């Protein structure tokens, strides 16, 4: 199991050091600094073995988090734990920075004492942790016995992510379907790979211990219902598009065995914001934009670039924050750009022409052309021509996913599914959206 956990600043100074196992000595702290942080060559693996001691590290801005062990630990678990640690810290004091860590070091030690015991991760849900570890210190001195046992049963219980007795005057929930669409296209317009990775993020402000059921246009479910009989619902849904989900993963509140057997998504949600599910689709993706590049080398000192973008969705919808990034060679001396829409600039420091368009409706097209002057070099190596990348945001889900329902049941309190105010929003963003040129 994890033998120790260290946090360093960018210089390699230790900010937090907590050792859980006897086999990890103080020298381990220095070994990581010398061999990884101060290494002359960039370290090329997130797992490093130095003198039979293994170091796992992740970096957040300038901060290094390292877990150390001498045993054959579950490596995936260690990384998951390090990410979780970052989440917990962010939930307590915001951005992970040297200053914030120094300011909260006592709190961090308390958290580390609680969420790792002898190197075994324990309950790390912030919802539960915040009931007894706060930034002012530990609650507990002035609690009643009932309160204390409520805390402990929540921390160890089956529903460790939600406390009892939550009350809202207005029961409300927000569902965000956030998708990032990834594309790799060949210069000829052939889709080399495309997939959507999506997340359903839920903000729940519900009283009591509500039982929820979430439904979407999952092909498997809809096909099953279609077979079930000619009910009204089935008749309606067969008219709608359903989508094939390659794979999905759920927050730990979702009953996985129920999903496995009936493919229904039921759960008691944590309070506040959390990620209900992640999913991945590869079929029938709506690619919101198509990039058509044309690069021509005119002699050794000039390049001509023309890029056309076409929007491919309903004309009534508007895409926002469109940015096209056209890479330029390192020996570029000057660039002249002409674009029909938006603003384009050559950014020498980034070796790219950045073309920004604020808004663009569906089924439109726009074009940019640029002349790139090159300095003659004697470098034999050809320019690698990185792909043209694109950023955008569209108000629909490129995978075609639709939320069909989210039902809320709370039998003990007197509110019903109809009383809950529900909001659904779809946002599609570009992930790695690249076209080779």
């Amino acid at each position: 199991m994890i033998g120790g956990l260290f946090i360093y600043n960018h210089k390699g100074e230790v900010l937090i050091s907590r050792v859980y196992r006897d086999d990890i000595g103080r020298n381990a702290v220095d070994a990581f600094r010398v061999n990884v942080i101060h290494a002359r060559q960039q370290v090329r693996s997130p797992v490093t073995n130095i003198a039979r001691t293994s170091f796992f590290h992740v970096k957040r801005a300038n901060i290094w988090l390292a877990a150390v062990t001498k045993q054959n630990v579950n490596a995936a678990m260690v990384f998951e734990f390090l990410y979780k640690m970052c989440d917990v810290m962010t939930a307590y004091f915001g951005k992970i920075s040297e200053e914030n860590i120094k300011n909260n070091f006592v709190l961090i030690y308390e958290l580390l004492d609680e969420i790792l015991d002898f190197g075994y991760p324990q309950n790390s849900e912030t919802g539960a942790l915040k009931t007894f570890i706060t930034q002012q210190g530990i609650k507990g001195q002035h609690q009643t016995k009932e309160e204390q046992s409520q805390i402990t049963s929540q921390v160890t219980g089956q529903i460790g992510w939600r406390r009892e007795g939550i009350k809202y005057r207005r029961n409300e929930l927000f569902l965000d379907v956030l998708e990032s669409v990834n594309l790799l296209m060949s210069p000829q317009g052939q889709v080399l790979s495309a997939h959507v990775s999506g997340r359903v993020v839920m903000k729940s402000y519900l009283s009591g211990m509500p039982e929820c059921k979430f439904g979407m246009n999952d092909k498997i479910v809809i096909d099953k219902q279609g077979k079930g009989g000619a009910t009204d619902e089935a008749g309606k849904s067969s008219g709608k598009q359903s989508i094939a989900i390659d794979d999905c993963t759920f927050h730990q509140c979702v009953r996985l065995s129920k999903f496995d057997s009936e493919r229904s998504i039921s759960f008691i949600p944590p309070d506040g914001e959390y990620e209900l599910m992640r999913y991945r689709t590869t079929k029938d993706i709506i690619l919101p934009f198509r990039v058509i590049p044309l690069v021509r080398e005119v002699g050794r000192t000039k390049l001509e670039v023309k890029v056309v973008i076409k929007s491919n969705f309903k004309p009534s919808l508007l895409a926002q924050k469109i940015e096209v990034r056209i890479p330029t060679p390192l020996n570029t001396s000057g660039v002249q750009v002409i674009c029909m829409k938006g603003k384009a600039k050559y950014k020498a420091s980034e070796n790219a022409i950045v073309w920004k368009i604020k808004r663009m409706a569906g089924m439109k097209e726009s074009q940019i052309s640029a002349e790139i002057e090159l300095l003659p070099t004697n470098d034999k190596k050809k320019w690698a021509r990185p792909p043209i990348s694109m950023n955008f945001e569209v108000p629909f889900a490129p995978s075609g996913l639709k939320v069909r329902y989210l039902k809320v049941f709370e039998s003990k309190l007197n509110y019903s599914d109809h009383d809950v105010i529900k909001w659904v929003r779809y946002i599609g963003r570009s992930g790695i959206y690249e076209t080779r040129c």
Partner: protein
Amino acid sequence: MEWASQLCENRHIGAKMTDSKYFTTTKKGEIFELKAELNSDKKEKKKEAVKKVIASMTVGKDVSALFPDVVNCMQTDNLELKKLVYLYLMNYAKSQPDMAIMAVNTFVKDCEDPNPLIRALAVRTMGCIRVDKITEYLCEPLRKCLKDEDPYVRKTAAVCVAKLHDINAQLVEDQGFLDTLKDLISDSNPMVVANAVAALSEIAESHPNSNLLDLNPQSINKLLTALNECTEWGQIFILDCLANYTPRDDRESQSICERVTPRLSHANSAVVLSAVKVLMKFMEMLPKDLDYYGTLLKKLAPPLVTLLSAEPELQYVALRNINLIVQKRPEILKHEMKVFFVKYNDPIYVKLEKLDIMIRLASQANIAQVLAELKEYATEVDVDFVRKAVRAIGRCAIKVEQSAERCVSTLLDLIQTKVNYVVQEAIVVIKDIFRKYPNKYESVIATLCENLDSLDEPEARAAMIWIVGEYAERIDNADELLESFLEGFHDESTQVQLQLLTAIVKLFLKKPTETQELVQQVLSLATQDSDNPDLRDRGYIYWRLLSTDPVAAKEVVLAEKPLISEETDLIEPTLLEELTCHIGTLASVYHKPPSAFVEGSRGVQHKRLPVRAGSGESSESPEASQAVGAVPDTPPPAVIPSQGDLLGDLLNLDLAPPTSSGPPQVPSMPMGGMDLLGGGLDSLLGGDLGGSPAMGGGLASAPAPAAAAPSLAAPASGLDMLFDLGGGVGMPTGSFVVPKAIWLPAMKAKGLEISGTFARRGGVLQMEISLTNKAMSVMTDFAVQFNRNSFGLAPAGPLQVLTPLSPNQTTEVSLPLSTVGPVMKMEPLNNLQVAVKNNIDVFYFSCQYPISILFVEDGKMERQVFLATWKDIPNENESQFQIKDCHVNSDAATSRLQSCNIFTIAKRTVDNQDMLYQSIKLTNGIWILVELRVQTGSPGCMMSVKCRAPEVAQLVFQCYEMVLKTSSEA
């Protein structure tokens, strides 16, 4: 949410004014000041002081001198202060064991506290204080806490047992904590169960043979129930523990798999990987024809692909594991090639791993896509990545034969970029391609030679030198090229030196006349001027080989190379099996067994995949499935097993060249070559080895073995044979001759069609060839060469095509053969691989010769010898054949066979059956004894063949069949 963030802000500001300042105190006399503050009456001041102490501790300052003062602060009702003191205690108790005792009372008291959080804190901290005296006091509070009414305390106590075990294993056993821990597996609270499982698993690891975990169907059932209810971390502990269980039969295995599969949808990648581990392991026990087996395989792919959208560090762990899974069960991900395509901004460690998996998944179906990708990668910036991509192209060529040509042309394109490391890497892989597909892509050698000067890495230089040596006969200036390397011999790395030595020796064996000086130079450099024992040894071996037995030298140096494996760096099957049991862990990331990086007894235990017991209806026997389990889906071994023992027999029987029957030839040229060398060696050796004169003498007097070289007498005999051709088939002087068959169609040889047959005429072996020019241009400069073959057939003279061959013209050529060429067993035995060259190209084909051409004229055995030999040859060497439908009497058979040098020694008649006893001698001196039974009036005969080399029996039978049948038809 808003109130929360606002609160955060406030606290943030509050914290700013307090905590970070502790890091800044670096004055002298600090310890002294702190001491005073710690002993202050004011609570707040005390707390501040302890915080400063912890901050100093964190940055590595030694604050152990403050031990008594800090411990004094422990008796407080301020929980925060208490926690800080505990933190300090855990760090320094070991260095101050006597004073640590002072803390015991407080711990014991805290373990009785009404607040469960404080009870748990006390028992948690106590376990971390590794001082024997304190450990003794720990036992009683721990026992109580293990049975505490509060689950939070119980789950903490469960881990504490593992802590205590780490300090004093005996104590844990004596106090009976292990049993209490086992009871906790049935606890009502899932987190207690999970921690108990984790603690027990850890303790069990250090007692490999104990039956601590005692997993049985009942306890497994409890674990599986807890799995649905506990935290993500608890699920990992339970799944990792489950993976150690071996189900009793396939049904139990299936039911566990069914209950574990829902975990594949968990958001936590570690849960997913641990579930994959359990499934991969238990799947071994499922019969492959089971529907469920197929379903399970299908279910595994999507979650594995999903892991690739996790954070990069986790992707890395996932990819390392997928690498194992792809080797173990390639079918799972074979359609998922695209997800492993490298993204431009993937971290380098992810890129390199993806590339590895891409090559593993490459197949004929997806090779076009893969190659297009690899070509992209080869233009990236990261040198390591580019190199690996280039290497990957080579590996694709070797793995997917259909793609070889495209791979080679891609590599040539890359060489044209002139990027130094790309060129070098490409040359290294082209060498492997040459080895895999000999005689196919040599046309690119010229391009490679152009880049000779830019090679500065040993591996690339060595590869290039190998290519030059291997194809010395096709590279006109091979000697110059190698000579250029020789100039800086001593500055080269060992790898290059060794390769250079071998290459020059190869060159010498191929072109002895021109390269004599060169070989002497390299031998002396390697033996006299080098400190490297490997180089010296190899030098001496070559030297002696060349001076004593050039034929042997040729056989050694130009030996057939074993085939190179399609899959490189595959993990060895037993290791792969062990690593499969460690999916998700560090072992699977390092691809090393835990024993390679874990100290002590922990994890040294080797894990094995379960073996499917033959319980079900499946017909597979346990042994068979064991074999399947042990070496599943592994490709054939990398090196083709060496030639069978038979060849040794064939060779050993008689190595001396045939005496009277051999073709009349004078191996003059090589003889001269050897002489020259002999002299040279003599003088060279004289200075170095004391005994060398004898060696030199031996060489001079040795009967110069004929290295396959054109004989001067051959043209004449070749012409003679042309006349013979007119005589046609069945002439009494010659043996039976098979009609000509097309050996090389014009399509495959740029318009040259070759047909031919073999014959033995007047004791001379010959190959009769018709060359037809079906191309548009004139062909000239014909030459022929044979690959080594079972009986050492080699051209005894050059291929005599007197005039240029015009389009649509056919010429008949007869090529005399000798049987003293290099020997290598072929499959089938009578296979002959031939290379024919003309002004256009070199073409290769293989043909089979009838064994009868090898029957020598003096094959008649004495009767007594025959009898003795017949008895002498063991009965298992006897083969029997039946020749059907041949209407021939024994006399006719005798005479017809005689014309093929099959001699009848005796004849016996029993019950209307004629028994003919016949002997045959092959060119290499092997005797074949035959008993032929001819039934008068019946259309068939029986034959038994006895020979020390039983492999030839089948060929002899074919020969008999053909001779007897053809003649009976005539």
